[in-house]
C-alpha cells in the first residue's frame, strides 16, 4: 500500500477549522458573559421622554463594546449610563445638557459622532474631501501617465491603421 502525503490534507483541515472558529473567538472577546448576565431593565420607549432617552442613549458610545451605542448594548457600564440618562431626562434636562454632562465627565470620546469643531473637523472633512477630490486626482495621474507613455515614439492607433490601409492597397495591386 502506498503512503499518501498527509501534510496538505492536515493543513487544509486546520485552515478550515480556523475559518470556522475565528469569528466565534472574536465574538466572545467583544461581549463577555460577565457583561451580559445582568437582567435587562425595561427602558422607556414612548412619549417625549422615551424619544429623548433613545436619542441621547443612541449618541453615547458603549465603552466596552465595538461600534455599539449604550442604547444597543446590555453591558453593565452601558446600563449604568442609561440609568443616568434616564434620571436626567426625567429631571427635565435637555438633550444638549445631557450630552454636555457626559462630555465633561468622559471627554468627547463618549460621543459616537465627534463634534465638528477643532481637530475633530478633520474626521468630517477628510472623507468628503477624498470623495470629491479622489476621482479627479486619479483621473489626472492616469491621464498624465497615458500622455507620458504615448510620447515614447509610439504613433497613435489612427496613424497605424492608416499605414495598414496603405500597405494593404499596395499589396492588392
Amino acid at each position, binding site marked *: 500500500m502506498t503512503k499518501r*502525503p498527509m501534510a*496538505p490534507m492536515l493543513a487544509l483541515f486546520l485552515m478550515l477549522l480556523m475559518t470556522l472558529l475565528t469569528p466565534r473567538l472574536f465574538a466572545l472577546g467583544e461581549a463577555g458573559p460577565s457583561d451580559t448576565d445582568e437582567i435587562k431593565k425595561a427602558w422607556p420607549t414612548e412619549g417625549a421622554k422615551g424619544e429623548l432617552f433613545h436619542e441621547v442613549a443612541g449618541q453615547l458610545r458603549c465603552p466596552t463594546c465595538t461600534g455599539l451605542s449604550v442604547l444597543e448594548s446590555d453591558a453593565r457600564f452601558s446600563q449604568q449610563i442609561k440609568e443616568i440618562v434616564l434620571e436626567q431626562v426625567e429631571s427635565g434636562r435637555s438633550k444638549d445638557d445631557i450630552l454636555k454632562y457626559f462630555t465633561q465627565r468622559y471627554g468627547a470620546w463618549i460621543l459616537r459622532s465627534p463634534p465638528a469643531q477643532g481637530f475633530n473637523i478633520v474626521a468630517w472633512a477628510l472623507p468628503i474631501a477624498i470623495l470629491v477630490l479622489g476621482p479627479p486626482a486619479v483621473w489626472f495621474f492616469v491621464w498624465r501617465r497615458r500622455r507620458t507613455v504615448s510620447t*515614447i*515614439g*509610439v*504613433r497613435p*492607433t489612427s496613424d*497605424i*491603421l492608416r*499605414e*495598414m490601409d496603405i*500597405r*494593404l492597397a499596395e*499589396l*492588392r495591386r
Partner: protein
Amino acid sequence: MIFATMAIGVLLLTVLLTPFWLGRGGLLQASASINSQAQLLGLKDALLKAYLKDELAFTAGALPARSWHQRRDFLTNRYIDAARRLDFLARTQADGGGAP
C-alpha cells in the same frame, strides 16, 4: 489525488497557452515579447498577407462573414501591437537604450 489535480491543471494550462506559441505563422505570439525589429517587420508582412488571404477567401465565399470579421479584427489588432512595439524599439534604439 493531489497529483491528479496537478496533472489536470498542467494539462489545462498547456492547452490554453499552446496557441500563443504554435499559432499559424506564430501570429498569436504577443508582440511585446519580441525584441527584434527585423522579426517585427516580418510579422507585420505576415499579418498583411494573412489579411489578404482571408479577405480573398471571404469574397470567394469560402469564409463565412462572421469568421471573416473575427479574423479581420484579430489581424488588425495584432498589426497595431506589432507596429507599436516596432515604434517603441526604434525610439529606444535612437535614444541609445536597449529593449527592456
